[in-house]
């Protein structure tokens, strides 16, 4: 067992996901099965090997800092579950 049900609950909280107790158990079993099968990676000698973050070497892509056409506030808000006065509306954040 690489990962306990407590670990899974912790990772779920980090990922902002909720699971019921039986879902947590199933997830723990599945993640353990998957991670066990990945064990063979640890047998590969990677001493001094640079990690690849991309397949093709690219450096920073710069462009001129010019104003270009962009979305109107109406278009940007059109898909919002809730909007008011040109803003995205969310539940109260600061408790009073």
């Amino acid at each position: 067992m690489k990962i306990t049900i407590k670990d899974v609950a912790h990772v779920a909280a980090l990922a902002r996901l909720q699971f019921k107790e039986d879902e947590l158990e199933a997830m723990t079993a599945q993640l353990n099965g998957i991670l066990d099968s990945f064990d063979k990676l640890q047998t590969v000698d990677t001493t001094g090997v640079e990690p690849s973050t991309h397949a093709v070497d690219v450096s920073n892509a710069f462009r001129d800092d010019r104003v270009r056409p962009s979305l109107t506030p109406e278009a940007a808000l059109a898909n919002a579950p809730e909007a008011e006065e040109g803003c995205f509306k969310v539940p109260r954040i600061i408790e009073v």
Partner: protein
Amino acid sequence: MARELYSLTIHELSALLLARTVSAVEALESVISRIEAVDGRVHAYISPTFDFARSQAQAADQRIARGDGGPLTGVPLAIKDILCTEGIRTTCGSRILENFVPPYDATVIGKLKAGGAVFTGKTSMDEFAMGSSNETAYFGAVHNPWDLDRVPGGSSGGSAAAVAADECIAALGTDTGGSIRQPASLCGVVGLKPTYGRVSRFGLIAFASSLDQIGPITKDVEDAAILLSCISGHDSKDSTSIKRHAPDYTRALKKDVNGLRLGIPKEYFIEGLDPQVEKAVREAIDLLKAQGAEIVPVSLPHTEYAVAVYYLIAPAEACSNLARYDGVKYGYRCSQPGNLREMYEQSRSEGFGPEVKRRIMLGTYALSAGYYDAYYKKASQVRTLIRRDFMEAFKTCDLIVTPTAPAPAFKLGEKLSDPLSMYLSDIFTIPTNLAGLPGISLPCGFSEGGLPIGLQIIGNLFAEEQVLHCAYCYEQSTPWHRRKPSLA
């Protein structure tokens, strides 16, 4: 009897359209009638866009009448529902984007519109492109046109099935670990994943940003070259897109493989490879040899680690990309959340399906404090070794030839409860994504049960022309791409 317009390829239909033998409106109506006749069984489309397509087809006819038509003008295409289309619902196969209407077009969509293409609709896919069978799609599974009890492959299963069933002339898919090539193989059509950076990802809903690429799914190799020519090229809106001239790929389609060195990696002919698949692929290699290609044994020794590397790197990138679905700016929000955190957690838990959650969990774990070095960093280092394997192999060969998938299409439901066995469906396609290489799948035979088998041809970085050239040679001397499913 004349062939129905819906059954034509891009180049066949385009010739008729530009000669004004048929109109774009007629071609579209033929495809629509086909969709209406068979999609109730195949379920390739999530959102058909017939009204929009009709206005595009009328505009295409006017354009052709002005003498301004190109190779895609008036050609009905299907679009994977992961590509943003302005004003047209784009779901990514997920409940969380069920009502999302993008305010802009993906760069590839803009290019196709500029070329005068007609969009028949948005095709089904595994949720957020996470799957190899199209069964994780929130809106329901797609059925393989060759056997309706079987999966079409995934994640671009809707696009591949739509092409195979003649529910479009061609389609766009995306490929993160095989999601164009594996469904193309299982549906008996052509699928091409370009070199990473060849096609702009702007407007492609992100899964794993260092792996995702958009590419064509078509009825033959020439069509793949035509579509790729339209969609490739540098885009300042995608910082990973490569500043490199994008050629007219149709000029690469020569009927001669003399002197081409084809590498055959022994690590792709392993236990677990279906004997019928092995036989068909070996016969394809023999045919290419008989046509003048030189066969070179090569080794890609880190192949066996590719699935593990991929299923750590892709979920790690995905858990970061999918953090944006928080119920604030767009997408699903749960009803009556008590506070902000509850809103995030409930919206995400109700909006994402089981496979997406599993990958978010795997990725979050692999990146979390204490495990980063053992998982994410280790996987990224082995990714370097996999890239080096290919670079080493390409010193002695021009192209690498392998099976696309280890077996023909499996039954719906067969692997759904066993994520690991599902992940192994991509064993031969994943390494090319990790190394950023271009790869094509094209039909190379059928199983005894009449299921298509795919041949994969992998090229060096930016060697799409060689890949297409070899694929075209093989295709032109074999009958497989002309076979159609009976849909009985």
